[in-house]
């Protein structure tokens, strides 16, 4: 009894496609935008969505996938909490002949045929982009006259989480090329504004004006840190260069105010892409194994013109 199906079912007189989607949780604005995008796109595409929130727990996601299999949905999609640990349940889905699409993060499985496609961004690449922007800034950009070591402080995401690990690695990979770049402090800010601010406060007390660059694994921590920097009487964006990732609205506001230098986009708006892929899968079309979302880097100069277009 799928009470709440889509309003438009122009996809055909037949039964609407049922998609089971397991979301990680609602831990950030980014994630909420992701959820909204998927729900909206499903409605527009006339796909019946079975949505389940895992509250950051892989166990819950596996439970949800099992339950989707028991309910015999047409397609399963999910954003994995972590890369590993999906082998068994994906095998069950395969046995039940339900195709699986990954969104936002990839999984590590021995057998690629366990899922049909992966739509989403690449956290390591995001870290690299952040690194590249920084190296460009100091080699050819405004900072080319800067002499001496470039002292970087890093605000990491939640310890152990995939984006934190990957964004750290990508960034480190790029700046390793030049010994001038030194990460003098690196601490977790748990992806939140409050922790970001608290940790930055401590960094400032310990290192003071030695800090040249702040690299935050997401915008929220950067926004928190900006407040700490201002309260310490230092100008964010000029005295301390700030780089962050995600490109949420708050980051654009900070960039327009000249307090954040750049935000590397990580787009949560996967909904439409996911729905068209789902339809293709059901129609039996050939699907590429990897669908990369289009993402860019927004330096603060472009913020004002980009801002009105932002949806999240």
């Amino acid at each position: 009894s799928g009470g709440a199906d889509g309003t438009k079912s122009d996809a055909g007189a037949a039964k609407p496609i049922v998609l089971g989607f397991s979301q990680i949780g609602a831990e950030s604005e980014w994630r909420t935008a992701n959820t909204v995008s998927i729900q909206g796109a499903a409605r527009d595409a006339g796909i019946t969505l079975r949505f389940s929130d895992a509250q950051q727990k892989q166990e819950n996601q596996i439970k949800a996938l099992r339950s989707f299999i028991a309910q015999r949905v047409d397609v399963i999609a999910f954003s994995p909490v972590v890369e590993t640990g999906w082998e068994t349940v994906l095998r069950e889905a395969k046995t039940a002949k339900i195709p699986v699409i990954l969104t936002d993060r990839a999984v590590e499985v021995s057998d690629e045929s366990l899922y049909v496609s992966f739509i989403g961004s690449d956290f390591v690449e995001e870290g690299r982009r952040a690194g590249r922007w920084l190296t460009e800034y100091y080699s050819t950009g405004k900072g080319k006259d800067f002499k001496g070591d470039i002292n970087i402080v890093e605000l990491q995401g939640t310890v152990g989480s995939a984006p934190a690990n990957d964004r750290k690695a990508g960034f480190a990979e790029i700046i390793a090329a030049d010994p001038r770049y030194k990460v003098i402090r690196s601490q977790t800010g748990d992806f939140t504004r409050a922790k970001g601010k608290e940790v930055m406060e401590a960094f400032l007390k310990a290192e003071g004006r030695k800090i040249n660059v702040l690299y935050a694994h997401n915008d929220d921590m950067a926004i928190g840190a900006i407040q700490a920097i201002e309260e310490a009487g230092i100008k964010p964006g000029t005295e301390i260069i700030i780089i962050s990732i995600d490109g949420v609205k708050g980051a654009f506001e900070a960039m327009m105010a000249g307090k954040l230098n750049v935000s590397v986009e990580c787009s949560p708006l996967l909904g439409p892409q996911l729905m068209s892929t789902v339809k293709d899968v059901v129609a039996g079309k050939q699907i590429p194994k990897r669908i990369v979302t289009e993402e860019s880097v927004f330096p603060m100069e472009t913020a004002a013109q980009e801002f009105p277009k932002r949806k999240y």
Partner: protein
Amino acid sequence: MRALVRWHLFWPCLTLALLIALNAVVNPGFLAFEWRDGHLYGNLVDILNRAAPLALVATGMTLVIAARGLDISVGAVVAISAAVAAVMIGGSLSLGDAEAVSRFPMWLAILAALAIALACGLWNGALVVGVGMQPIIATLILMVAGRGVAQLVTGGQIITIYYPPYAYLGNGFLAGLPFAAVLAAAVIALTQLLLSRTPLGLYVRAIGINPVAARIAGIRAKPITLALYGFCGLLAGVAGLIVSSNVRSADANNAGQLLELDAILAVTLGGTALTGGRFSLVGTALGALIIQTLTTTIYSLGVPPEVNLVFKAALIFIVMLLQSPEFRAGIVRLARQPGA
């Protein structure tokens, strides 16, 4: 000297002093103060400011625990209160000319947030006192649902508060000291005064030590317990305001996350027994300071994030063992043996 060692807050005080000393040794600038823009600036000021919400929540928790209860919903209540205040104040981004507008008057938003927090506390109390549920389950319900309610209020977004006066709560200074810290200290002092000037403190202890005997002695445990839960909720609400004001935004998902554990930890470090009865508000405040100093220590020592937890645990173990008379007696015996 002997009396000092016997004093029940001696060991928490000593612990705090040792932690600060450790910081001062590693980082000579740690104890430095600076007078900047009409207020004090320095690590210790930060610690006071940061510990304020925790101290407030832990104060409420102390009383609930003293009366044989427990409230694990405080983190969720922090999120709810922050969300309500943020949504009601809101405001919009204004570049350049900072035009202070809020959706509702600030006082109304604050009152509403506190009223809802109080209601949350009373709800917990009603489940415990009226329905007779075990405290942990009664408050688990709000812990689970409360964060959902907060997210419902914010629509899952982080609500940024653009109304500058609101930032005073969490960032402002009163007489050179962080307003939040002053507020927390005042609340604790007033609570302490209330408990010692009225017989409430006696009743809470009696209920905590032997509820059956307290009832037979004519103490009306139900309204008192209900009020304690309400008070705990209210203080969590105040903490929510401070937290949201501090970062000028409300994050329904993360505000107050795991605060209940820290609060209970602060309560225990301050020498309050989780089995009820014996309690100390000043001890709890010290406990909150110890926890915050510990966190700051981790940051200022540059401990890598992977090691954070082990480091924190090691310090907690040391603190607990120091506070255990049995352990100290064991050490003394060990020290005497080779000599004798």
